[in-house]
């Protein structure tokens, strides 16, 4: 089933087309990757899907529902979560508190519930904590839950960012360079984490620069260049596509593969 359907999507900043006429289907239960040189419009595409930016052309629909002009709050509530390129955590909070922040969008209790300590509030507090701890465990960082986010290593931070996104109970997770800044030998572990997401019912749309990781993980790859679609296909097709090799992969990628 097609989870996310992007049709003719475009975003102009002044006279510049950051994204132009991009169409993409993200299938349920699969890992779809977006690659391309710096400035190809990958992050812009994410920001459009997530509702940070308003598209200037085209449509986006999620589970058959039009979300082209949804605000981020609605998109997240609807089941799309994201992580950022630069690790983004609340530094002065513990990892558990960080992941609990991801539960806000699923919480219904308000100030009055909090002040009067209603059963709904108590029940929700318990559920939120269970789900947050479960997300941390899933990402393999539960043992750090009481450490401050600024005190843990980069990889733990990256994993926590994923846990925080998972805490919002998404059906589609947008990962913007999740393995950026992680030492090469640890990317395999991290790749396994991403690979396990579809089994959890979370489909993945992924931007990544590490080619070996992408080729290994992705079911479908979209190649962007100057905001436009250059190629779309399974990893083997992309690797042998002459346009892609010329525009992006170049000689280094051939070495890698």
């Amino acid at each position, binding site marked *: 089933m097609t989870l996310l359907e992007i049709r003719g999507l475009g975003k102009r900043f002044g006279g510049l087309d950051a994204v132009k006429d991009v169409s993409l289907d993200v299938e349920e239960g699969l890992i779809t990757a977006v690659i391309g040189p710096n400035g190809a419009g990958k992050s812009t595409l994410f920001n459009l899907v997530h509702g940070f930016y308003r598209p200037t052309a085209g449509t986006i629909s999620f589970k058959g529902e039009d979300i082209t002009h949804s605000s981020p709050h609605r998109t997240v509530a609807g089941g799309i979560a994201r992580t950022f390129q630069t690790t983004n955590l609340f530094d002065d909070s513990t990892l558990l508190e960080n992941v609990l922040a991801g539960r806000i969008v699923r919480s219904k*209790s308000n*100030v009055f519930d*909090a002040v009067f300590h209603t059963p709904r509030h108590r029940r929700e507090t318990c559920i939120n904590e269970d789900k947050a*701890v479960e997300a941390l*465990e899933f990402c393999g960082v539960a*043992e750090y839950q009481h450490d401050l986010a600024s005190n843990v290593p980069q990889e733990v931070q990256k994993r926590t960012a994923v846990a925080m996104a998972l805490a919002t109970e998404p059906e589609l997770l947008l990962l913007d360079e999740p393995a950026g800044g992680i030492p090469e030998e640890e990317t395999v572990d991290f790749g396994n984490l991403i690979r396990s997401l579809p089994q959890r019912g979370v489909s993945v749309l992924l931007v990544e620069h590490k080619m070996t990781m992408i080729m290994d993980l992705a079911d479908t790859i979209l190649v962007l260049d100057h905001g436009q679609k250059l190629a779309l296909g399974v990893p083997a097709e992309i690797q042998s596509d002459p346009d892609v090799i010329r525009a992006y992969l170049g000689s280094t990628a051939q070495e890698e593969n």
Partner: protein
Amino acid sequence: MNSMKNPRIIGTIAVIILLGLTPLAFAQENYTMRVITVGMCAAIAVYGLNIILGFTGQLNLAQGGFFGIGAYGVGLLTTDYEWTFWAAFVVSVIGTAVIGYLCGLLALRTKDEYFAIFTMAIGFIIFLVISRWESVTHAHSGVNNVKFPEGGGLVDFESPVAMFYLVFAILLVCVYTTYAIRRSSVGRTLLTIRTSEDLADAIGVRVGFSKQLAFAASAVFGGIGGGLYATVVGFIGPDSASIDKTFEFLMFILVGGMGTVAGPLLGSMIVTFLFELFQDFQAYRFIVLGPIIVALVIFAPRGIIGYLGGFVDKRSRRRRVEEARGAEDDRGSADSSNSDEPDYRPERNVAGGAESNASRSGDTTSSEETK
């Protein structure tokens, strides 16, 4: 509930009990009672500032103005219109909420320093209206003989001690509300906005709406503080809505500690006390107070409560980290669990960690949350 052993809560309760007992010592000294009661009125307004500045991170400089609206609402309605205090009080607080909400609609279109400047302008406009609109507010002659609250024959609020306990009771409600917000997902929502609006947006927080509510709530607290202030002092002038009031509140919260439960109360009491102590110096008192505040901002930027809380957090976190690791570190890497910054061990036993966490996930009502 391990939260009952939390040093923060014990400390806050100790401060409140101490404050609640002050009438025993000063019951005969009307002046002292009044100074303390006025300080508590200010503290209520500071709790409002705490919600918008301490939790949400938006520097609202209109708080003095909202305080003034509350004070003048009660003052004018009980004198010129001869309402009872309670009716006037309720209407003033609702009025402040409405005005606060409308101001928020405009002010929250701006961010950071622009928000501060914008709200300062709002505060100044409120002050100008109060000090110039002579036919309604009596401008510089102020409002005299504001009514005491009606005791319904049970309590005589003309007695300073009764008035003290009235304000004290309302202050307690504010402290408890702050505590309840702080530990709930509402507080977490506001804290995410304070730390990073973009990240808050990304995890589905309704940033604009939450800021709007926080702003209105802070105005309500300002109105409550102002309304009580009017009846406590009996006479109000335009200076009760001035920008100076806003900066007084700001000083109270800086000294006590932003975003803490006990901070606004402690800060208000300490600075009020210092003001009284240096009263003979008049305007020059800031020559003495200024350096104290500069030193405080340098050495304890999170205020007195934030400074003390730092130790509590560090200790309890270390304990929790040790607890969480204890099960798997039996083998002997005990030295690393003493370190506050644990080194990452890729060969860690994930299953073991999960087990030890699952077993204690019931009591994760984190005590750090409740500061």
